[in-house]
């Protein structure tokens, strides 16, 4: 408990620093767009209607989806920029997070600016014209000072929203306090989840308090409060981002970027690869918790240098194949097609498979007499199927349904951790498990056979980005990992990270994996 807390706190300066830098930039950008727009909207009913409707619409998009949507858009733009200007820009990490959060921060500022300015007493506005003020003077000397308390209230709301939503920038590869929450949820490290929530909530409360001080200063024309709030914000901002600047100065740019998707095995394998590179003196940055589809595209565009993916996943989702020609044919097909299409190098297979497989509790399977997917087909109408968040939209699910004619009473989606819990608590009868998951052995689950071969093989393979295809240091460090991990070893390592007691960090598990 105490060591998990201290491990979590060790990462705090970096995560908090990025969280603050991201939220502050998004808020500043949002303010610089929404404030003029809100003022203009106060003058034009049509603009007011259009801008508020648009901002309101953006607000209804779930923030996670908004963040995720910016990645493909930026990737496309970056591709265009590369073609036209010969220079792309990173589509992952800070930029998509910044843009999505900026959009997200705009509504309260826009709404309050428009309401604040149009709410100024018409007699005072007329007096401003009467004493000879120009439109600009009237805005700066009369309307804005009188609307300032209302505008500040909008900025406060926007700040709290932005700080909260910034935790969702983790899946697009931006370090934030969300790293605690996403990783902690995955490895059931509740200490980390709590640290992430507490830090984010604490930050929001402090910023809200300081902005409240500024708001009161503006409303009561009290210079002392105004200065205290402003100074507090400035000092806090500098203190929070100082560690980032320090790190940037002392380390320079990391040589390699290792990616990982959002589950324990990926964290462990990323640590394993990073460790091998660091042992050869390279500096390595880890970008974990990438969305499944994001990871491959990030690799193809060179934003990460290497990560581990699974042959069946690439086969179905990247090459859009629904057939299953067999283990070796899939690997050979991937090696040539990924190279030809994206320049991506399939370096080597690690030696284990992390297959999608349908799993049941042993007692339940024996009671129903289900050993294979073919047996399951007759019982399925009375059973509840639990899938991870992407399973039901993956081609593998469609293939299984088609091959065996499966039709369940109900389908439910879970975050993987809770999917295993649902099976234990009988809220689901069958789940989409991963064959290398340590919980299969620990929870005594049975994997159902696939006699028709509907599910492709899922060999874990190291992928290397096109720009590192000839990088000797990287290739020399990672190639020896080929064939070095069997499924038992991977299951044990995964379980060491996922279990409730005696938990290990992904780095510790990685160190044990290749002893």
């Amino acid at each position, binding site marked *: 408990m105490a060591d998990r807390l201290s491990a979590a706190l060790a990462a705090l300066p970096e995560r908090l620093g990025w969280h603050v830098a991201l939220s502050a930039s998004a808020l500043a950008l949002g303010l610089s767009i929404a404030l003029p727009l809100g003022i203009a909207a106060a003058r034009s009913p049509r603009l007011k209607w259009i801008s508020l409707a648009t901002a309101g619409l953006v607000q209804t998009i779930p923030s996670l989806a908004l963040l995720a949507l910016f990645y493909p858009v930026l990737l496309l733009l970056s591709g265009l920029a590369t073609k036209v200007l010969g220079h792309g820009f990173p589509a992952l990490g800070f930029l998509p997070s910044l843009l999505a959060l900026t959009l997200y921060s705009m509504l309260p500022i826009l709404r309050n600016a428009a309401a604040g300015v149009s709410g100024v007493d018409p007699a*005072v506005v*007329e007096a401003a014209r*009467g004493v000879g003020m120009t439109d600009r003077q009237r805005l700066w000397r009369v309307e804005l000072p009188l609307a300032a308390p209302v505008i500040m209230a909008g900025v406060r709301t926007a700040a709290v929203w932005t700080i909260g939503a910034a935790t969702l920038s983790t899946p697009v590869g931006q370090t934030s306090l969300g790293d605690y929450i996403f990783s902690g949820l995955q490895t059931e490290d509740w200490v980390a989840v709590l640290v992430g929530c507490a830090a984010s909530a604490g930050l929001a409360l402090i910023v809200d308090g300081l902005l409240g001080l500024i708001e009161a200063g503006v409303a009561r024309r009290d210079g002392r409060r105004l200065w205290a709030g402003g100074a507090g914000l400035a000092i806090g901002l500098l203190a929070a981002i100082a560690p980032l600047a320090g790190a940037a100065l002392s380390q320079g740019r990391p040589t390699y970027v290792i990616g990982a998707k959002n589950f324990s095995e990926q964290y462990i394998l990323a640590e394993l690869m990073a460790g091998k590179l660091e042992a050869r003196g390279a500096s390595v940055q880890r970008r974990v918790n990438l969305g499944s589809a994001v990871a491959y595209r990030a690799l193809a565009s060179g934003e990460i240098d290497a990560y581990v993916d699974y042959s069946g996943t690439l086969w179905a989702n990247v090459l859009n194949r629904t057939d299953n020609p067999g283990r070796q044919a899939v690997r050979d097909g991937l090696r040539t097609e990924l190279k030809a299409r994206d320049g991506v190098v399939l370096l080597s297979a690690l030696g284990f498979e992390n297959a999608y497989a349908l799993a049941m509790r042993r007692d339940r399977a024996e009671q129903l007499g289900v050993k294979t997917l073919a047996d399951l087909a007759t019982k399925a109408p009375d059973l509840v199927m639990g899938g991870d968040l992407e399973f039901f939209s993956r081609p593998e699910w469609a293939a299984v349904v088609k091959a065996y004619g499966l039709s369940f009473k109900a389908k439910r989606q879970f975050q993987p951790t809770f999917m295993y819990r649902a099976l234990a608590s009988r809220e689901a009868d069958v789940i989409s498990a991963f064959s290398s998951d340590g919980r299969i052995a620990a929870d005594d689950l049975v994997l159902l056979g696939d006699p028709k071969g509907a599910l492709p093989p899922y060999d874990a393979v190291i992928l290397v980005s096109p720009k590192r295809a000839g990088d000797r240091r990287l290739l020399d460090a990672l190639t020896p990992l080929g064939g070095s991990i069997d499924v038992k070893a991977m299951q044990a390592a995964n379980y060491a990270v996922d279990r409730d007691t005696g938990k290990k960090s992904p780095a510790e598990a990685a160190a044990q994996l290749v002893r």
Partner: protein
Amino acid sequence: MTEAIVLDQVSKTYGGRAVLAPTSLTITKGRFVALVGGSGAGKTTLLKLMNGLSVPSAGRVLLDGADIAAKPGPELRRGIGYVFQEIGLFPHMTVGQNIGVTPELLGWPADEIAARTDELLDLVALPREIAGRAPSQLSGGQRQRVGVARALAARPAILLMDEPFGALDPVTRAALADDVRALHERLRLTTVMVTHDVGEALLLADEVVVMANGQVLAQAPPCALLAGHSDPVVAQLIAAPRRQAERLAELARG
């Protein structure tokens, strides 16, 4: 030249509705002119045309012989005093800052503005120490005195007032009206005042302009109007305060 303000066939329509029929009017320099009439008569519209707060749909407005359309609105208004019915003091500024706002827009040096503020507070019979207070700390009568001081700050030759005493109680109202008339004499202003109180207009003004339904029906000195007018609307408007005055005189005689 003795014509301070000339309206030449000005008219005003809002969304297709005529609020002011084509009107010509001349106001002589140094006069105190009252615009009277019921609500919707077009008095305020006519007043706002004189300093460009409202732009005529047709016709010209000449100040000292020059068409005001040739001058940018803000620049024009800095040279004309304007007192609002709702007073319209800036609530986020002190009394002193309110009074000094037009001189400040004109770029006067700070010490000159401060001296002028003191001078104006004396002129409108307010203690100098209220310069540092917020408008919300003043009484209604004090606030409108500040409104008058603000209008006069940049030494305008023309003072326009829109129902300046409308929101005040009768005693405050009479005192302020007398003071404004005295200021008019002392500063040799040309003053145009909108009011719906015909009695007040007859007592204060050198000349009364009677309006109804967006048209000027009469322009004459008070005594001429009291002597009777051919237009029935004008005659009716004048009859009420005259009858009141006669009955008050009878009562006073006992």
